[in-house]
C-alpha cells in the first residue's frame, strides 16, 4: 500500500529501532526534527511572503497568532497549499515523521500549520494524512484548527463520502465549541439523510455526540427528539449502535425530552433478544461467512484437539502466536452450527448494541408504562435465563457483557424480589468461575447489588464463596471480595466475617493489610455481639497487624473496657492482655494496650498463676524497651500511665485488700512515703533537689512523682521525697507515692514542654525526684526501667540524676552528654548540656539549607556565673555565626544566644561548641558537639511510584547510586527501622517495594551547592538475619550519596546510647499536641509533661 511505500519514513523508523539507548534515539530524533524544521521554515517563509503580500502584513513575527486571528475568517487553507516549496509527498512524509516522533514522546512544537494545511489538499492521500495527524497533534483549542473549519465544513457538505468520513472523524475526535456551532446542522443532516451510506451516517452520529458534548445547545431538543426516535427504527446495526451512543448522551442530559425513545429501546432489545432465542445456543454475532468458512474450521479443530487434552491454555498461547483471537468471541457450538448452516449473517445479533441499549435505558429514571415495563422485564428475564453461564463462561466476553448490563438494568429498575434473587444467583455462579474477569465483575456487581435492600439475605448465601475469593491469586479480586464482605456484614454474620478477615490478615499482602485491619476493626465495633469478643478481635488485630492498628482503635478498646461495668468482661480482657504479653515478640501497640488494661485491672487476675502484681510488673518491664525504642510519645505515655495506674492500684486500699495481703510491707511503706513527703513539704523545690541528691549519696532513694489526686489543684512546689530502705521489697517500687510537682523548679529550656516531650526536660522536672531501685536486691531490673521511662540521663545503674561524687572537686555533667546529643539529632529542642551550675538548652529551626539555632544558657544558681565564653568551631561545610555571648550570667537567669547556620555542602562533620565559665573558683570548660547533623538539612518528601521509579532508574550506578552490604546492624524490626528512618526525616514510602522485607524511603537534601536534591533509599533486610542488610542510596550528587550512605550506616550500626540496655535509642519527640486533660488529673499532668 501507499504508506509502506514511503521510504524515508521506513528508514527513519528503522534508525530509531536500531538505537541502542535513549540517548541515541534522542540524537536521531533531534536530527530529524532539525531537518524537518529547516524544510518547513523555507516553506513558511514563502508562505508568509505570499500572505503578507496579499494582506499587507509587515511584521515578521506576526505569525502565527496574529496570522490566525486576523485571517481565519477571510482566508481558506486552500490557497496555502498552492505555495510552491515542498512537494505534497515530502510534506506528507514529514508530517508522518512528526506524528511518529510525537508518539515516541518528544514534543513537536512546530509544523502544526503544515499538518493542518494538508487537510485542504486536493488528493486523498495528503488529505487523509492531514486529518489523521491533525487530530493526534492538536487539541481542540488550537488556533490553527479554526483556520480549518471552512475546509472541514466543505468536506462534510461535499458529496465525496470518503472526504466526509475523514472530516467527521476529525470533528468527532477533536472538534471544539466553534466546530459545534458551525457544523452541527450539517452533521445532523448527514445522520438522518437516507441517501448517505451507513458508513458515513454512523460517523455522523458519533460526531454529533461530540459536538453535543461541547455545546448542548447545538442539538435543538424540540426538533431533534422526534428525529432521534426515528433513528431508532434504523435497520443498519452500525448506524443503530452509534445512534444508541448518541441517545445515551442526550438522555443523560435531559431524559424527559427523549421519553418517546424509551419504548423503542425496549423494542430493539426485544428484537435482539428474540433473535438470540431462535437458534438457541447457536446464535452468535457478527461473524462474516467467507472468513469464517475459511479459517474457523481449522481453529475449531485445533481447539477441540487441545480441549480434549484439557490444555486450553497452551491452545490460547498458540492462538496468540497466530494472532487470531477467534475463540475469545465465539461459542464453539455456534461456530459448528454456523458452518453447517452456511452462516446467515443477517440473523446474527449485535451484542454491543444490546449493551448500549440497556445502558440507554438506565438513564431513564423509571419505566412507567406498564406494558413497556412488562415487555422489558420479559426481555431481561430471557437474557438472564438464556445464557448458560457455566457452559459458556469460557472467555465469552461479549455475551457476558450483555449479562452484566442486564443485571445493572435490573438493579436500576428495582425489579421484584424474585428477579433480583435470580440476578444474585447468576452472580453467585459468576464469582465461582475460572475466568478471572468474570469473577472480578461478579464480585463488583454483587457489591452494587447490596444497595438493593431485599437481596441482602440472598447474597449472604454466597458468603462462603466470597470468603474463598479472599484467597484469589488476583489482588484486584481479593480487594473486591473484601469490599463485598465489608458491605454485606451485619449482626448475623459479623462474627464469621470478622474472624475470616482476621485469619486472612496473617497471609494478606502488605498492600492490603491496612485496609483489611481498618475494615475488620470497624465491623467488629459496629456489629460486636458482645464486648469480650470485640476486645478479643482488636487484640488479635494488634497482634497480627499492629502497624496498621491506629491509636484510635486501641484507645477505643481501652475506653470500652474502662467504661464497661461487667467485671467478667474486664477480667477476660485483662487475661487476654496478659496472655499476649507472654509472646516472645509483640507489637508496640500491644505493649501499650496491655500495659494500660493490666495497669488498671490486673487486680482481677491476682489469684491466677503468673499474674501477681510483681510478675505483671516484671513482664511489662521486660516488654517496655520495645516501646521506648520506638521513641514514640505514646510509648512514654503508656510507660507513665502504667506507672500511674500501678500507683492508683495501690491506692485502692480496702477494696483491694487481697492484693495488699500479698504485699504485707506495703502499708508500712506507704506511710513512710507520706511521712517523707510531709517532711519535705516545706522545702522549695530547689532545695529539695539538692537535699535529695545529698541523700542519694548514702542511700538508694526511690521516688515516684505523682500528685495526690485528692489535692485538687497542684501546689507548685510540693515535693515528694521518699527514702526506701534497702531491705524492702524492691518490686513494690511502683506503689510508692510521691507527692511532687516540680514544675518550674528548674530552668525549662523549651518554652512548650508538653508539646515537645523531652526526656531531658523530664529529667529536669523530675530532677529531685529520682526513682531508683536498690541495685542489690532481687529483681533489680525493674526499677531502673521505671527510671528510664521517667528520667533520662541517669547513669547506668540508675543511681539517680546526680553522680555520687557530685560534691567533690570537679564539676560533673548531669546526664550523659552523648546521649543528649543523640537525642537532639532527632529533635529540635532539648537540653544539650547540664551540670550543677548551668544548663544549656537548644531550640532549633531548620528550613532548607538554613538553620536558626538558639542556645539557652541558664544559670541554675543563686550566684552569678562569670567568664562565660562560647566559641564556635565550625566544619568547612557549615557557615555558622554565633551572636555575642555575655560574659556573666546573672543568678537564676537565662540568656539566649542565636546561632545562624548555613549548609554549604553535604558532609557528616559536626560543629563543636567550646564553652567555658567560672563558678567560684571552678573553671569549667566543655566541648560540645552541636546537633547540626546531616539529617537536619533533610526535608521529608513522599514520592509516588510514578516519581520514584524514573528517578531510581536514571541514577544508574556509582557514584550517584551506591550500594553496600552492612553487617553488625543493631537488630530491629522493620517497623522499628521505618520509625527510625522517619525520625531521621527519611520518609518511608510504603508500597514501592513489593517485597515486604524491604524498605524504600525518600527525602530532599538542601545545601547551597546541591540546592534541593532528591535522595532515594532502599534497604533490603533479611528476616532470617536481622544483623545484616543491604542498602542502596541514590541522589544526584556523588558526595551527597556517599555522605548519606555513611550517615544512615552510622544510625543503623551504632547504638546511640551506648551503655544502657533499657533505653537503647535516644528518645524522640513527635509533634503531638499536648493533651488538654484537666490538670487535676495526675495521669494527665504526667502525660502532658511527657
Amino acid at each position, binding site marked *: *500500500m*501507499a*504508506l*509502506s511505500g514511503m521510504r524515508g519514513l*521506513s528508514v527513519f*523508523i528503522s534508525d530509531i529501532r536500531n538505537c541502542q539507548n535513549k540517548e541515541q534515539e534522542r540524537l536521531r530524533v533531534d536530527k530529524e526534527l532539525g531537518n524537518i524544521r529547516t524544510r518547513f521554515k523555507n516553506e513558511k517563509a514563502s508562505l508568509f511572503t505570499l500572505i503578507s503580500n496579499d494582506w499587507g502584513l509587515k511584521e515578521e513575527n506576526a505569525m502565527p497568532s496574529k496570522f490566525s486571528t486576523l485571517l481565519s475568517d477571510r482566508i481558506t487553507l486552500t490557497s496555502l497549499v498552492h505555495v510552491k516549496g515542498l512537494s505534497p509527498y515530502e510534506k506528507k512524509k514529514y508530517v508522518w515523521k512528526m506524528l511518529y516522533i510525537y*508518539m*515516541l*514522546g*518528544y514534543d*513537536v512544537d512546530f509544523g502544526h500549520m503544515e499538518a493542518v494545511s494538508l487537510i485542504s489538499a486536493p*488528493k*486523498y*492521500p*495528503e488529505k487523509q494524512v492531514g486529518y*489523521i495527524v491533525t487530530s*493526534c497533534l492538536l487539541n481542540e483549542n488550537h488556533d490553527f484548527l479554526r483556520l480549518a473549519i471552512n475546509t472541514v465544513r*466543505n*468536506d462534510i*457538505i*461535499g*458529496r*465525496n463520502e*470518503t472526504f466526509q468520513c475523514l472530516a*467527521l*472523524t476529525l470533528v468527532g*475526535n*477533536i472538534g471544539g465549541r466553534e466546530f459545534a456551532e458551525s457544523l452541527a446542522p450539517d452533521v445532523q443532516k448527514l445522520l438522518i439523510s437516507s441517501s448517505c451510506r451507513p458508513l458515513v451516517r*454512523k460517523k455522523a452520529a*458519533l*460526531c454529533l*455526540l*461530540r459536538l453535543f458534548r461541547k455545546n448542548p445547545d447545538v442539538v435543538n431538543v424540540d426538533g431533534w427528539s422526534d428525529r432521534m426516535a426515528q433513528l431508532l427504527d434504523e435497520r443498519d*446495526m*452500525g448506524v443503530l*449502535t*452509534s445512534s444508541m451512543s448518541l441517545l*445515551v448522551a442526550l438522555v443523560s442530559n435531559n431524559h424527559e425530552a427523549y421519553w418517546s425513545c424509551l419504548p423503542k429501546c425496549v423494542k430493539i432489545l426485544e428484537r435482539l433478544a428474540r433473535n438470540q432465542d431462535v437458534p438457541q445456543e447457536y446464535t452468535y454475532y457478527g461473524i*462474516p461467512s467467507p*472468513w469464517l468458512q475459511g479459517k474457523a474450521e481449522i481453529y475449531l479443530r485445533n481447539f477441540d484437539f487441545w480441549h480434549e487434552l484439557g490444555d486450553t491454555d497452551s491452545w490460547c498461547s498458540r492462538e496468540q502466536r497466530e*494472532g*487470531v*483471537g477467534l475463540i475469545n468471541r465465539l461459542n464453539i457450538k455456534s461456530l459448528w452450527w454456523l458452518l453447517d448452516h452456511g452462516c446467515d449473517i443477517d440473523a446474527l445479533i*449485535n451484542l*454491543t448494541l444490546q*449493551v448500549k441499549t440497556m*445502558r440507554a435505558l438506565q438513564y431513564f429514571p423509571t419505566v412507567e408504562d406498564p406494558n413497556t415495563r412488562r415487555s422489558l422485564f420479559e426481555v431481561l428475564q430471557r437474557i438472564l435465563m438464556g445464557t448458560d453461564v457455566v457452559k459458556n463462561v469460557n472467555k465469552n*466476553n*461479549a455475551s457476558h*457483557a450483555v449479562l452484566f448490563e442486564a443485571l445493572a438494568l435490573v438493579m436500576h429498575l428495582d425489579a421484584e424480589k424474585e428477579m433480583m434473587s435470580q440476578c444474585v444467583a447468576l452472580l453467585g455462579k459468576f464469582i465461582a468461575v475460572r475466568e478471572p*474477569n468474570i*469473577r*472480578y*465483575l461478579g464480585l463488583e456487581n454483587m457489591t452494587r447489588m447490596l444497595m438493593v435492600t431485599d437481596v441482602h439475605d440472598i447474597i449472604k448465601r454466597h458468603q462462603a464463596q466470597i470468603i474463598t475469593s479472599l484467597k484469589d*491469586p*488476583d489482588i*484486584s479480586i481479593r480487594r473486591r471480595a473484601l469490599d463485598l464482605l465489608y458491605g454485606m456484614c451485619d449482626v448475623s454474620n459479623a462474627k464469621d466475617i470478622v474472624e475470616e478477615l482476621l485469619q486472612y490478615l496473617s497471609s494478606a499482602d502488605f498492600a492490603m493489610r491496612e485496609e483489611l485491619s481498618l475494615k475488620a476493626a470497624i465491623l467488629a465495633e459496629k456489629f460486636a455481639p458482645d464486648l469480650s469478643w470485640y476486645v478479643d478481635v482488636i487484640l488479635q488485630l494488634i497482634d497480627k497487624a499492629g502497624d496498621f492498628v491506629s491509636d484510635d482503635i486501641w484507645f477505643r478498646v481501652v475506653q470500652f473496657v474502662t467504661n464497661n461495668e461487667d467485671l467478667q468482661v474486664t477480667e477476660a480482657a485483662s487475661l487476654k492482655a496478659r496472655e499476649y504479653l507472654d509472646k516472645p515478640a509483640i507489637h508496640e501497640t500491644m505493649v501499650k494496650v496491655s500495659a494500660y488494661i493490666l495497669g488498671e485491672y490486673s487486680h482481677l487476675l491476682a489469684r491466677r498463676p503468673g499474674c501477681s502484681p510483681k510478675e505483671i510488673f516484671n513482664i511489662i518491664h521486660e516488654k517496655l524497651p520495645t516501646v521506648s525504642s520506638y521513641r514514640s510519645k505514646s510509648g512514654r505515655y503508656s510507660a507513665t500511665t502504667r506507672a500511674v495506674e500501678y500507683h492508683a492500684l495501690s491506692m485502692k486500699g480496702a477494696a483491694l485488700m487481697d492484693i495488699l495481703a500479698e504485699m504485707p510491707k506495703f502499708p508500712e511503706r506507704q506511710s513512710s512515703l507520706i511521712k517523707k513527703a510531709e517532711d519535705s513539704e516545706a522545702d522549695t523545690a530547689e532545695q529539695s533537689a539538692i537535699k535529695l541528691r545529698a541523700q542519694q549519696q548514702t542511700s538508694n532513694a526511690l521516688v515516684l512523682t505523682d500528685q495526690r489526686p485528692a489535692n485538687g489543684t497542684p501546689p507548685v512546689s510540693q515535693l515528694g521525697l521518699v527514702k526506701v530502705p534497702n531491705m524492702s521489697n524492691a518490686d513494690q517500687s511502683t506503689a510508692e507515692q510521691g507527692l511532687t510537682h516540680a514544675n518550674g523548679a528548674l530552668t525549662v529550656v523549651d518554652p512548650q514542654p508538653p508539646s515537645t516531650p523531652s526526656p531531658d526536660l523530664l529529667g529536669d522536672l523530675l530532677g529531685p525526684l529520682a526513682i531508683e531501685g536498690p541495685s542489690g536486691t532481687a529483681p533489680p531490673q525493674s526499677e531502673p526501667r521505671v527510671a528510664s521511662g521517667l528520667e533520662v540521663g541517669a547513669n547506668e545503674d540508675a543511681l539517680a540524676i546526680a553522680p555520687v561524687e557530685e560534691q567533690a572537686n570537679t564539676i560533673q555533667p548531669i546526664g550523659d552528654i552523648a546521649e543528649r546529643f543523640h537525642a537532639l539529632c532527632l529533635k529540635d529542642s532539648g537540653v544539650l548540656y547540664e551540670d550543677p551550675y548551668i544548663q544549656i538548652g537548644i531550640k532549633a529551626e531548620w528550613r532548607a539549607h538554613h538553620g536558626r539555632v538558639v542556645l539557652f544558657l541558664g544559670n541554675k544558681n543563686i550566684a552569678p556565673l562569670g567568664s562565660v565564653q562560647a566559641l564556635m568551631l565550625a566544619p568547612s561545610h557549615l557557615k555558622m555565626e554565633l551572636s555575642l555571648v555575655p560574659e556573666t550570667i546573672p543568678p537564676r537567669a537565662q540568656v539566649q544566644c542565636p546561632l545562624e547556620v548555613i549548609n554549604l555542602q553535604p558532609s557528616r562533620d559536626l560543629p563543636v561548641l567550646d564553652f567555658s565559665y567560672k563558678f567560684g573558683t571552678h573553671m569549667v570548660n566543655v566541648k560540645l558537639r552541636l546537633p547540626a547533623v546531616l539529617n537536619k538539612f533533610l526535608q521529608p518528601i513522599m514520592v509516588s511510584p*510514578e516519581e520514584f*521509579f*524514573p528517578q531510581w532508574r536514571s541514577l544508574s550506578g556509582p557514584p550517584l547510586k551506591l550500594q553496600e552490604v552492612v553487617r553488625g546492624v543493631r537488630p530491629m524490626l522493620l517497623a522499628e527501622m521505618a520509625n527510625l528512618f522517619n525520625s531521621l526525616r527519611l520518609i518511608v514510602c510504603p508500597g514501592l517495594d513489593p517485597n515486604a522485607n524491604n524498605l524504600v524511603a525518600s527525602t530532599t537534601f538542601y545545601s547551597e551547592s546541591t540546592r534541593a536534591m532528591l535522595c532515594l533509599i532502599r534497604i533490603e533486610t533479611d528476616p532470617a538475619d536481622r544483623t545484616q542488610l543491604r542498602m542502596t542510596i541514590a541522589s544526584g550528587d556523588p558526595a551527597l550519596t556517599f555522605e548519606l550512605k555513611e550517615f544512615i550506616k552510622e544510625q543503623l550500626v551504632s547504638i546511640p546510647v551506648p551503655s544502657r540496655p533499657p533505653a537503647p535509642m535516644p528518645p524522640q519527640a513527635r509533634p503531638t499536641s499536648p493533651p488538654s486533660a484537666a490538670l487535676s488529673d495526675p495521669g494527665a499532668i504526667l502525660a502532658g509533661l511527657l
Partner: protein
Amino acid sequence: MIRGVIIMNDQGKPRLVKFYEFQPVEKQQELVRSIYRSRRAENVSNFVKVDSLFGPDVRLVYKTFATLYFVFIFDNSENELAMLDLMQVFVETLDKCFSNVCELDVVFNFKKVHTILDEIILGGQVLETSSSEVVKAVEEISKMESNGNSIISSIPGWQGR
C-alpha cells in the same frame, strides 16, 4: 467514553498512542510509563482501576498479544467486558489487515493502524464492532490512497470555491 488506546511492546515502547481527550505529550508519556508499570501477571483479571492517573471511575483493560500489550482506558459509561471484546475486534482486524500481524507490522505501518482504529472508535465511542465491516472500510481507504488522483474530479465541494 473510551479515554484512550495504547499499544506498547513488552518493553514498554509505545507503538500507538491515541487519546480521545487531549493530553500534552509529557503527560502522555507519563501515562504510558505508569500503565506499563501496572502490568500484571497472567491469569488475573484484565481490569485495573487507574483512579490515580485519570480520576475516579476510570479503569483500563489490557491484554497481551505475543509481544504487544494492548490497553484501552475508559470510564464508567462503558461496559468492561464490551471493552475487552472491542479490543478483540481491534486485534482481529489488525490480524486480517496485515495477515498474521506482528509487532513489526504495527511499527512500520503505524499510519495504517491509525486508520484502522479510526474505523473502530470515534471520539471515544464505539463505532463498529464487526471486524469485517472495518476491514471493508480500510480496504476502501487503501484503494483511495493508491489512486488518489482520480478522485479529485468528483469533488464538487471544493472546486466550487
